[in-house]
């Protein structure tokens, strides 16, 4: 098995909500309000090996993007520990050039690419600044990367708005690759694209993975995409990982009731009309999550102790863990 590239232990991140200056002042004088705290990510532990792709799937508000940002090192943690190749993030991120080893691709390339820079600069700037290539050779360097992500060579002098959505996402990927990362984090990188363009970008990511052995964390709400790209999948619900398994295992025999519900809700191409009644209930507000197991109000097999006890992740088979009190592990 490959070396471990990334480890997260009990990562948590909270945000204080509200925070308008006037309200803060009022609270200060009245001394009657506890600040509302949102636990976006709650004790998440993950590992990633070299060359592996880990998927993180969940619905809006489950904390998957917050998790992605913490792994990328662009958001501090509230508690918990992150390690890159065994080294803690504190010492690792302090060395600016090494920090480039983790790169991120975002959902909306138009808002993550500087609209006033030419693509050549967007892609080449960081590489030059950090001394990965001499300025005199940057043009060839960028040209190679453009070819690798399937963009025409003349893109170098164009601006982001002159590209289509799919091409822009290629620019975003090219920018990430330009600093020779070892780990790539894709946060909903294909969510905003049309099906046929999405297929092109997924294929590109698979090529990159095959050619360079890049380790990837792929965040998405789309189970179809996750199933296609990832080696292992973590399912998140309201800040917690509820199930984690190899992709094949998770899709073949999901054990957590929430994972089952997600898989059932996933639209499939079929010729059968949806006849069954889907599971009721809304995603609760992360500001005020249900007690015990967060999923219990929507869970078909919830019992009384689900309301009180927080389920911990436990192994069902080697490599397959879930957090459910009621589904027996054998």
């Amino acid at each position: 098995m490959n070396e471990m590239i990334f480890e997260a232990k009990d990562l948590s991140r909270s945000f204080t909500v509200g925070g308008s200056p006037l309200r803060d002042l009022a609270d200060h004088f009245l001394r009657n309000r506890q600040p509302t705290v949102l636990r976006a990510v709650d004790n998440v532990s993950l590992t990633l090996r070299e060359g592996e792709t880990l998927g993180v799937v969940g619905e809006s508000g489950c904390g998957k993007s917050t998790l992605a940002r913490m792994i990328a090192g662009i958001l501090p943690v509230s508690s918990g520990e992150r390690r890159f190749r065994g080294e803690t993030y504190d010492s690792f991120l302090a060395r600016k050039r090494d920090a480039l080893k983790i790169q991120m691709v975002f959902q909306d390339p138009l808002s993550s690419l500087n609209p006033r820079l030419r693509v050549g600069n967007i892609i080449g700037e960081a590489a030059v600044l950090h001394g990965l290539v001499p300025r005199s050779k940057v043009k060839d360097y960028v040209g190679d990367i453009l070819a690798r992500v399937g963009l025409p060579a003349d893109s170098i002098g164009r601006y982001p708005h002159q590209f289509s959505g799919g091409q822009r996402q290629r620019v975003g990927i090219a920018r990430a690759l330009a600093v020779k990362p070892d780990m790539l984090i894709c946060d909903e990188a294909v969510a905003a694209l049309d099906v046929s363009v999405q297929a092109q970008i997924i294929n590109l990511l698979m090529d990159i993975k095959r050619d360079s052995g890049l380790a990837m964390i792929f965040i998405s709400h789309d189970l179809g995409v996750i199933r296609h790209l990832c080696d292992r999948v973590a399912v998140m619900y309201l800040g917690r990982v509820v199930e984690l398994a190899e992709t094949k295992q998770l899709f073949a025999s999901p054990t957590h009731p929430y994972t089952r519900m997600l898989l059932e809700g996933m639209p499939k191409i079929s010729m059968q009309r949806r006849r069954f009644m889907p599971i009721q209930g809304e995603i609760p507000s992360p500001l005020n999550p249900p007690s015990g197991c967060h999923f219990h109000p929507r869970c078909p097999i919830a019992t009384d102790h689900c309301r009180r006890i927080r389920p911990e992740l436990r192994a069902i088979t080697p490599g397959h863990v879930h957090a459910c009190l009621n589904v027996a592990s054998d």
Partner: protein
Amino acid sequence: MSEPFFQVDGLNTWFFTRQGVIKSVRDISFDLARGEVLGIVGESGSGKSVTGMSVMGQIDEPGRIVSGSISLNGEDLTKLDFEAMRRYRGRRIAMVFQNPLMTLNPLMRVRDQMYEAIEAHENVPHKDMHARCIEALKSVGIPSPEERLTAYPHEMSGGMRQRIVIAIALLLGPDLIIADEPTTALDVTIQAQIIYQIRRQIDERGLGMIWITHDLSTLSELADRIMVMYAGAMMEIGTTEEIIGSARHPYTRKLLDSVPSRNAPGEKLKQIPGNMPSLLALGKGCPFANRCERVSEICGEPVPAKQLSGTHRIWCYHPFED
């Protein structure tokens, strides 16, 4: 299936811009029966939304319906003046958009927005309006509707807001609902609930529905018939079984093949090479020709419709055989 009550015939909607004429919708014809859901599927720029807006009479300058007819219960909507069309909109035809926050007024309670919709078309006492609102909210699966009535849009989740929009659309008992990507922004579990409830309303009330989306998977579970559009033109139309099970048009096949769940996990997806042509520079032939592997010289000529069965029509010189 009953007789169609709604027909679009030879619709052309063009936009006359400074750069040239953008022919967003070209020669679109379809019909719809009561209790039926017609899915229109296509990628960005395929003209699916402009088709929906044309039916609603919402095409603004520099756009214009250049030719064609849109008839509802035998009356041609393209011939109606603004005031007559206003009376149709909301009452006979309702529309649901992707983003409910842009449809709902953020400063008004749900109740007032619903009352407003009724008052615009009917003269009803408040007590009856209240009962109707409650009934509409219940029909789309909104729990504790009394409380929701006094809420503001920002107090609700995205799924709940979209249900409110659908409830408002149902409020005046329209014949036809046009839904443009209504569940695209929602989570899968919520999407599944809304699709289930919409389908039930269609069946119970005998409405017609046009469901515009880029998502073939959702359509395959919801629609009775599917129409595939590309670069402003119809490529193929047929029952869901015909389109999903035995698509004959190369574009439809490619589109189906590029969906991840139709490919073996871990293998490369079958992608469509190239990009959609600019709508400013379309030839007279098939718009998909430059990306099609079955292309030949004749594809540069105007493509006539081929009737494959009573319900299955296709625009292609080289369709698949089986």
